[in-house]
């Protein structure tokens, strides 16, 4: 047979196959399972790649959360819990495929995870298609709860970038109840930077602050002098610096003596690895907000337990995303105890809407309109003492969850 005939044959066969196969296969619904049947949870996060440490922290926190919430029985409503872990490799199209595998091949009844917002965004539509509730933590993009990406199967226990911005503004408002504050921002010239700056500007302006400048640095630039010099001459009262990754600007800010120009540094305190880069900030002093640091929650029984257990199991303190994993587990177990182990979304979604659940940072609840967890954050001082391996956030006050209600973006 010549090549031409081969190809014609294939195309013909393909056409027949397409016509024959064009029927929709019914998507697997979230099964409810009977009494005592194993509860399959699909946990998918970045377990390799740039956000590997976030994913691993989440994993540790999730297990501790399950242990606490189920009293170490790892069963809920009589159903033993089975967790299937998947690695998104921090690549959105791989994340989508692995989520698909969890939903279809492994037939999980619930999904949780996602450290990278890109991974989460690529998989959101699948939860609607397969009618399975997903509890997302810590992917923080506002886009996840915004139209047209959001659907009612999505719940997020982690905070959203909008809450970070409002927390920063709340810190300033608390310091200056009379108003009249001038601010400026310094952030990497990337999606992450824009995602943090945009809601901050909106919130700051709404609070009556004067935004003097918004400066952006290329993420891999080693010299931010132009931006910093402009900021120094503008001399805002507060400079909100956002940074993640290497080449952080703290040392240069100190060198160029922005503080001498009357600028106070404010920022959000991230996970421990990034705190290590912020030692100059601890030396200079400053004020900011923090999502979680293990000494911050006050009188939180869950946190005390988690810190103690984490030291026992892993010989180190729990970190930002560990708390997130714990919170996700807590939300899931709380909900399933109410529904009696039923994971059918027609029962589970109305249950979870507005539901309060306990976490290491305090009580959170899922907002009705977009299922985003309303939660407390913390106002902190930046401190550092000789011998500290990283900048240590020190407690000032709790930023209440009602102070930081982000705008509803999904059109509800």
């Amino acid at each position: 047979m010549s090549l031409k005939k081969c190809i014609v044959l294939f195309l013909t066969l393909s056409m027949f196959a397409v016509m024959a196969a064009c029927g929709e296969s019914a998507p697997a619904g979230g099964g409810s399972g009977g009494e005592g049947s194993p509860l399959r949870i699909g946990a998918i996060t970045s377990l390799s790649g740039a956000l590997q440490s976030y994913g691993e922290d989440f994993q540790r926190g999730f297990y501790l959360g399950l242990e606490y919430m189920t009293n170490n029985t790892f069963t809920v409503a009589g159903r033993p819990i089975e967790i299937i872990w998947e690695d998104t490799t921090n690549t959105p199209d791989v994340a989508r495929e692995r989520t698909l595998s969890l939903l279809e091949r492994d037939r999980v009844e619930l999904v949780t995870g996602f450290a990278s917002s890109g991974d989460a965004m690529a998989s959101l539509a699948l939860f609607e298609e397969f009618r399975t509730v997903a509890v997302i933590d810590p992917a923080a993009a506002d886009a996840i709860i915004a139209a047209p990406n959001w659907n009612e199967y999505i719940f997020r226990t982690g905070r959203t970038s909008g809450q970070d911005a409002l927390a920063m503004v709340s810190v300033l408002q608390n310091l200056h109840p009379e108003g009249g504050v001038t601010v400026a921002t310094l952030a990497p010239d990337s999606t992450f930077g824009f995602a943090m700056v945009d809601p901050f500007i909106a919130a700051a302006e709404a609070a009556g602050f004067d935004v003097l400048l918004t400066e952006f640095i290329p993420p891999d630039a080693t010299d931010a002098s132009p931006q910093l010099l402009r900021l120094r001459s503008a001399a805002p009262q507060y400079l909100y610096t956002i940074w993640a990754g290497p080449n952080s600007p703290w040392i240069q800010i100190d060198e160029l003596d922005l503080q001498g120009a009357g600028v106070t540094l404010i920022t959000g305190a991230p996970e421990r690895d990034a705190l290590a880069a912020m030692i100059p900030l601890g030396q200079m002093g400053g004020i900011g907000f923090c999502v979680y640091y293990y000494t911050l929650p006050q009188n939180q029984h869950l946190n005390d337990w988690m810190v103690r257990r984490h030291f026992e199991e892993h010989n180190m303190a729990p970190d930002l995303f560990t708390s997130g994993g714990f919170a996700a587990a807590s939300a899931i177990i709380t909900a399933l105890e109410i529904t009696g182990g039923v994971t059918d979304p027609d029962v589970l979604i109305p249950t979870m809407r507005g539901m309060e659940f306990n976490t290491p940072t305090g009580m959170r609840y899922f907002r009705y309109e977009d299922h985003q967890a309303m939660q407390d954050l913390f106002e902190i001082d930046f401190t550092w003492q000789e011998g500290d391996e990283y900048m240590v956030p020190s407690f000032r006050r709790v930023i209440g969850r009602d102070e930081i209600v982000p705008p509803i973006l999904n059109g509800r």
Partner: protein
Amino acid sequence: MGNITSRFPNLITIPKLLWLLAGIVILIIPPISTTATITMVSRIMIFAVYAMAYDILRGYIGIIHLGFALFIGGGTYFVAILFANVGISIPILLLAIVGTTIYSIIWALIVGKIAAKSGLLATAMITMAFAEIMRNMMERWRTVTNGLDGLTFRVPAPFDNRTFMYYACFVFLLLMAFALYKFTTSPTGRVWQAVRENEQRAVFLGYDTNRARTIALLVSGVVAGLAGVMFALLNRFANTDVLAMQMTYNAMLYSLVGGSGSLFGSIIGSAVVVLFQNFLLDLRGVHFIFERWLIFFGSLYILVVIFMPKGIMGFVETIRERWKHKKGGKIYES
């Protein structure tokens, strides 16, 4: 070194039976597999086209294009932006295809002009810069593209049916493979290989190497752009990762593992790498050592470079030549 055209087996010399077998396997996968498998094979087929297009540049005309992601990224973003902002329908898809083609043509012409004046290395560096420019643009244009967070969108029927999408990818692969095969065995294709072997000699022999190079870039760019369109339809999501260096590395690695200079090699390379990655990810549940799957993945590349430097197809060809030599038969296929 021997006759250039038989250095690597072209599509005809592979036994017909193997073709038919592969075709049948591909055709019967959907009814007997999970959606995840169907999606994975669709992804393999799209990446196969992408790698083939890359290999036209690297394996045939000898241009190292370090910004090749900008073609597949362009195709993906045309579809994503139009679907997310304008509407979802077949006419808009056709508009995206036309847009992608024009975009690829423009970039191909630009690189062609530069490659004509500069050497291999300079072209490589400049193309890398071009891809970064596109990635940066898409990242800053947040209002339209959502940057790294990405755009989600629905796709028009019948592309929302995964089985249909699978067969569409298959037909796409066949069409593109056929088109590229025709190109590489045409006189222009021979000129490409002449340019790769010794450009100066080709010029002295009277061939217009700049024209050949431009044609190679146009063909390669448009095919990669169309692969981007299919990629968007498959994933229903687009973010700036599709324009990042990793995407270009994917093309390089798939075509290298499969065998540079042979079209079929890119198809094999794409299949081998993606299947291997999935295989490793599936093993996570079996033993905790596979949590460090990247080590095994990297080892694959190291092994290929050491034992099969010409890629899988080159390896097959070496075996065949040795076998023919042993039998004392003709070394060159007629």
